[in-house]
């Protein structure tokens, strides 16, 4: 009892904001979040149609699924790549970035689940695929939901050491440490399925998704999640350097290794894309607008950042690597939005998602950033901790 009381008091004391309140970031994001929360209430009192102009009978999935879930999953790829490098390959020098990568993925996946909840028409049946007698085992979405639940659990287990250090409980910490490697291995397995599975959702739309994006979508989704995850880790590093000046461990030259790995996977991706185009005889599409968009994706957002990565790694220019990572992430976002929205039913006129949908989508991301900041300011994520004896 005493322990619980102590924990609650500690938790309440930790809830108080640390640092300055009136930062430009807070001033800009607070009204957006408040508006977003109001719109979420509006959505639950007036139905899904009230907020989603993009979501219609022709385009059932709007921004919440297309951007927050499908794109978000790809951006959380770092949550399995970095633990793979550190715990499986045993490259210990990358240890400083493992916790922020895990935290990004953990928060990411929790908030995708939240976005899905907002997007469901009948959310009170949310537990039907998890418990009960309605298992649609032949459905990819069913697999995806289970993987999502298990993966969040695994990421939480991977993150547990940081929580125990924050609470200052040494016995609990020793127990949590023992879970990590097992959780990492299970999590990598689940992540492979979830990354490919997001693409596999569209396997059932062979006539609706443009052939250029449809062909071998699961493999390309998986490979792109690798360089997307690596690039996001590079970007988070460069941002947190500025934001969390007091505690950020200097990743320094570590990002060269990540840039190298990203560049290599992008090379594999591009080569496979070319083989895929040649093999499925898709050259004809390059005369159409969708074909041009595809070329923009491949040349502007794969080949171009690949060259930048190569130069940055060769000459050890951090700025160039960071810029390349940024362009890569934009390219991944473009690719996922193409699959979910632009190249989906490309033969029909498209509408831009309504402003309310955009605000809600942005709100989810902003709350996620706030949660990230709250945790980084309290737990040993970026600052130096006892990773030597892990």
């Amino acid at each position, binding site marked *: 009892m005493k322990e619980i009381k102590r924990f609650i008091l500690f938790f309440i004391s930790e809830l108080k904001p640390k640092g300055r309140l009136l930062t430009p970031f807070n001033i800009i994001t607070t009204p957006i979040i408040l508006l977003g929360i109001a719109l979420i209430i509006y959505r639950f009192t007036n*139905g899904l149609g009230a907020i989603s102009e993009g979501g219609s009978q022709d385009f059932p999935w709007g921004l919440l699924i297309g951007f927050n879930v499908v794109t978000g999953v790809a951006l959380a790829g770092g949550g399995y790549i970095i633990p*793979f490098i550190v715990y499986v390959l045993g490259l210990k020098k990358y240890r400083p970035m493992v916790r922020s990568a895990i935290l990004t993925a953990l928060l990411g996946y929790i908030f995708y689940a939240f976005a899905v909840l907002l997007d469901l028409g*009948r959310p009170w049946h949310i537990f039907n695929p998890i418990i009960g007698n309605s298992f649609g085992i032949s459905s990819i979405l*069913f697999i995806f939901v289970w993987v999502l639940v298990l993966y969040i659990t695994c990421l939480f287990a991977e993150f547990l050491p940081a929580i125990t250090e924050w609470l200052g409980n040494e016995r609990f910490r020793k127990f949590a440490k023992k879970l990590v490697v097992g959780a990492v291995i299970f999590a*990598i397995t689940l992540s492979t399925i979830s990354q490919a599975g997001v693409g596999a959702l569209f396997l*059932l739309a062979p006539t609706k998704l443009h052939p250029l994006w449809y062909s071998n979508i699961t493999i390309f989704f998986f490979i792109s999640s690798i360089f997307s995850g690596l690039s996001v880790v590079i970007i988070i590093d460069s941002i947190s350097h500025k934001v969390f000046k007091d505690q950020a461990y200097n990743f320094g030259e570590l990002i060269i290794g990540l840039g190298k790995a990203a560049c290599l996977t992008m090379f594999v991706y591009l080569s496979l894309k070319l083989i895929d185009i040649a093999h499925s005889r898709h050259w004809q599409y390059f005369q159409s607008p969708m074909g041009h968009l595809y070329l923009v994706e491949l040349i502007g957002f794969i080949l171009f950042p690949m060259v930048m990565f190569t130069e940055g790694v060769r000459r050890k220019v951090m700025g160039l690597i960071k810029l390349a990572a940024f362009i890569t992430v934009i390219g991944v976002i473009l690719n996922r939005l193409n699959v979910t929205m632009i190249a989906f039913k490309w033969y029909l006129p498209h509408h831009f998602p309504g402003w309310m949908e955009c605000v809600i989508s942005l709100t989810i991301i902003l709350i996620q950033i706030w949660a990230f900041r709250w945790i980084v300011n309290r737990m040993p994520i970026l600052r130096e901790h006892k990773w030597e004896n892990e």
Partner: protein
Amino acid sequence: MNRREFLKTGAIGLGGLVGIKGKAYPCETKEFYGMLVDTTLCIGCRSCEKACSEVNHLPAPNLGDDKPRQTSIDAFTVVNKFKIDNQEIFVKKQCMHCNQPACASACLVKAMFKTKEGPVIWRGNKCLGCRYCMIACPFDIPKFEYNSLNPKIRKCEFCFERLKKGEKPGCVDACPMEALIFGTRRELIEIAKERIYKNPDKYVHHIYGEREAGGCGWLYLASVPFEKLGFPENVGETPYPEYTKEFLYSVALIFLLWPSFLIGLHKALKKEDEGD
């Protein structure tokens, strides 16, 4: 009540208790039911639309309007007019009730469900409202009530409730031209083939729905190629569950291979590390 009757009642009662249907559906069959639409006979009176709305308690259709339409949350079937070579052709559109429906294989809670009688129905007590069925359906049939707080997926359910009572679907009873024929799929394909055989110049030699998307419950005959009548031409003949089969198998494979591979890698590299 004699002994035999007593046993019979007892058995039915017991069956009811353990959830076995004491009484079979009057329409019980080992084959899927279907419908044959002969578009050459349809005069576009849209009686079927009216009957459908009545049976399903939907707002009455505006019969004066003959713009091309899609099915919607309050019109489970629509008849569209196509003008081809100065000839007016009317095509009824509704759920095709596929043999292996894309919507049902997409549904993660089996809310979209292929009954053993043939109709593909929606079960509200399971549905999450994720709208994946709408992504999957190659005919774009399921429609979602966006402006409802208790939204339903709406589409033609082949009047499953009527079928269970031994009645035919609402639309077929209303058709004055016998452009709609209700029956088992096998019978209907025979009738359709016979019509093509006897009138080779009248019909295109293709029964739409016989093989499309792995076969549909609704079959169509027409005098002009189907792509001119608004039918999706690129649906193909592959049953939709086939598209995801490979991935579903590989999920099991990844679950078996990945952890053992990763553990092996982890162990192997760890030893090397310690050797240093």
